[in-house]
């Protein structure tokens, strides 16, 4: 998708200014999307209150600095970075000058810090009456748990993802990532911002948006929630199975030898197979060569396959374990059976389909070099996302933003640098 010449020179958010006071995962992704669609995004950090993702890898080989984290750099494309120490009075003044410039202010800092920094909505509207002020607290700005701590690693457990994902007789390990941070929370946030921008265009009025990460994430687990509110049944994790499909799961395939950083090693390979109808089950049987076991009466109906699912899975795995997941996928998809490779990070990068669609984006970064970034989660035919600049180095645009956006003179900037306000 890189550098596609837009059919429409004007992008949807051209002319929209975003003051991005966020950090970690859940905060920065939303302003990044705004920047990809034309907004000017200024990311505010400081050396004393730096985005911790800058310190978490992966880093390119032989390089380790705050500017080369593949984690941070994937969420801060097209942004400018200014360092302001918000714990100083002058830093606070600069923040408000930035808010005066901004159409949208966004932060996922805790309510305590927002209040300490004087960046609550009532303060922002004093300098920018039509501001759209967006807060993403963990649990909300009110309520008995408003000051509870948590990052994504604790949010998964609190919101129910860990209890509901995985095998029933195993600990609640969950998704292995800070899952709600990456799509559910940032995209919910952007939907709300676009609604507010639309309202502002019609009425001239801004508004306050609050997205409690707890609420936004629990909204994504509705079936389990309603099974309790309506039926008072508290579901538990059920592995990879579904009540209305069988087989439905992950199956072991042939192991492969791979090159790893410290020599060769084995890699487990997996595929998924799912049958939602008798038609798909019968197609699966044929694709497997109509083996005798599959003609067993016990497997003739969905109810039977559910009842004998352990046996069913063992039989299918005998077949998959002698094949690569790629072979399983192409054979079964050709036969009309839903099947796929359980892809890992390497598989995704090498995925021929994604390559043909030019999903991944290569960007040149002054310190990290040429690296790969995730492409767009949605595509617009007339105003595609534009990937113009790799993530900024810490404070890379401090001078430029002070001068061009905040309207400071060179002398004023120098004084603020000396006073360690721009720090």
């Amino acid at each position, binding site marked *: 998708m890189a550098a596609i010449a837009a059919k429409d020179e004007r992008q949807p958010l051209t002319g929209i200014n975003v003051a991005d006071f966020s950090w970690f995962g859940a905060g920065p992704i939303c302003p990044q999307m705004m920047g990809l669609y034309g907004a000017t995004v200024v990311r505010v950090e400081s050396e004393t209150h730096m985005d911790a993702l800058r310190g978490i890898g992966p880093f390119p080989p032989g390089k380790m600095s705050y500017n080369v984290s*593949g984690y941070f750099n994937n969420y801060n494309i097209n942004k400018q970075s200014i360092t302001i120490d918000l714990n100083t009075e002058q830093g606070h003044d600069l923040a408000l000058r930035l808010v005066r410039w901004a159409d949208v202010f966004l932060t996922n800092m805790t309510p305590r810090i927002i209040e300490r920094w004087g960046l609550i909505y009532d303060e922002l509207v004093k300098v920018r009456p039509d501001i759209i002020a967006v807060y993403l607290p963990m649990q909300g700005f009110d309520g008995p748990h408003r000051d509870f701590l948590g990052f994504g690693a604790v949010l998964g457990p609190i919101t129910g993802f860990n209890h509901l994902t995985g095998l029933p007789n195993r600990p*609640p390990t969950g998704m292995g990532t800070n899952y709600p941070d*990456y799509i559910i929370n940032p995209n919910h946030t952007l939907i709300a911002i676009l609604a507010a921008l639309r309202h502002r265009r019609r009425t001239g009025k801004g508004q306050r*948006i609050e997205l409690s990460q*707890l*609420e936004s994430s629990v909204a994504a687990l509705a079936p389990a929630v309603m099974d309790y509110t309506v039926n008072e049944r508290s579901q538990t994790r059920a592995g990879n199975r579904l009540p*209305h499909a069988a087989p439905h799961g992950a199956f072991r395939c042939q192991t492969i030898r791979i090159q790893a950083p410290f020599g060769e090693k084995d890699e487990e390979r997996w595929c998924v197979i799912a049958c939602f109808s008798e038609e798909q089950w019968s197609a699966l049987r044929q694709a497997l060569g109509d083996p005798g076991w599959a003609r067993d009466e016990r497997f003739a109906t969905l109810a039977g396959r559910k009842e004998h699912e352990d046996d069913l899975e063992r039989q299918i795995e005998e077949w998959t374990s002698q094949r690569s997941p790629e072979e399983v996928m192409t054979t079964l998809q050709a036969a009309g059976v*839903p099947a796929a490779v359980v892809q890992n990070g390497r598989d995704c990068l090498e995925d021929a389909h994604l390559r043909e669609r030019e999903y991944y984006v290569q960007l040149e970064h002054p310190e990290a070099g040429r690296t790969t970034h995730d492409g767009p989660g949605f595509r617009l035919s*007339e105003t595609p996302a534009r990937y113009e600049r790799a993530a900024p180095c810490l404070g890379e645009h401090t001078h430029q933003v002070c001068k061009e956006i905040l309207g400071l003179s060179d002398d004023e900037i120098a004084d603020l640098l000396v006073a360690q306000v721009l720090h």
Partner: protein
Amino acid sequence: MPDDTPTALGDVRVLDLTGELGSYCTKLLADLGADVIKIEPPGGDPARDVGPFYHDEADREKSLPFLNLNTNKRSLTLNLDDPAAREVFRKLAPSADIVVESFPPGYLDSLELGYEALQALRPDVILTSITGFGAQGPHAGYLAPDIVGVAMSGIMWLAGDPEDPPSLPYGNQGYLCASIQAATGTMMALYHRDLTGRGQHVEVSMQEALLIAQETAMQTYDLNKSVRGRMGRRGGLPITVPGMGPYEASDGWIWGYVGAPGGAAWTELLKWLEEEGMAEDLTEEPYRPIIEQLNIRFLTGLMLNPEESKPKIPLLEHIDGVLARFFASKTKWELYEQGQGRRLLIGIVSTPEDLVKNPQLKARDWYQGVEHPDLGETLRYPGPPYRLSETPWRIDRRPPRVGEHNAELLSELGYSQEELEALAASGAV
């Protein structure tokens, strides 16, 4: 009294041709005030057959996942394979700001209702297409239920413990994320249309919609040629680190992240154990000095040089054992609320029951009652994902019964009672 605060999308009409894959997209639009007309095949959307059901009564009006995904919508049944039904759709299309569909690629074109045909009926229309893999590319024709999407996007590979098979994320997260991305793209296109008068085609592939949720797996291979595996309950730490990961409480599970930045130090946890008389020998040598070092620097050192930590393993395991006994002596809610009161990074592993009883969600009045007169009951739905001060999210209308608004919508289009009956008799509606 009904809330009549203006909504953000009160002037927008959406024709919703989606099934399970796309229904959360149109729910998001409907809950912001759009007039969403759900067009279902006669007999209803097959998603109505997916449980759990209201009181376990398998009935097309009682599927709980379906109900949640279809709040605020109206239902029109149309058999789009029938020319007379397509004519009804064509009459409806000029009123549509947005059309959202989740058919296999090419299906709408085959009905002569693709993007160009829609543009002829409504020049500034926004068409949003949600599919498993997008319309182009070698996998475009693949069958793509949710599990195929989460497998191909790399997020399933990461879920679970390394010794177990990859785990399926609960709750059709592939469908859900494809829908969220689609709603974001649709809103972006709508804002652009408001400004320029031009519509466009929004395309979402479920696989692409999910890829960014791999966290660092893609970059780990891109930069270091190393495959990130399932890090499991210990978060990829090579040895047991007390306070990190899941622990059993007396009545369920909690999750610790003690020692990570932002929260109180391990010494605060030790103080708590002492106060409760459960610290055993942890206050003494050699344990206390180790506990004082259990912070992010220790963890970083551990990841960079696991060998150096080896001699400490038995000591750490002993500390972990004492801690596990302490956690097992209290309930998950005690550990969560009292631990957080001490600024310790401890989370409850919430069950659905915990979510519904959660005091924070209660205090913020999050769950939404929706009256279902036909059931004689008010059902409680998940509440707003976001709170907008001027243009609120809200549920004004319970989800529709199959074809509930056929007569209303057809008479709006100028069909007479006789024509309506003829359409019904032919199976078009």
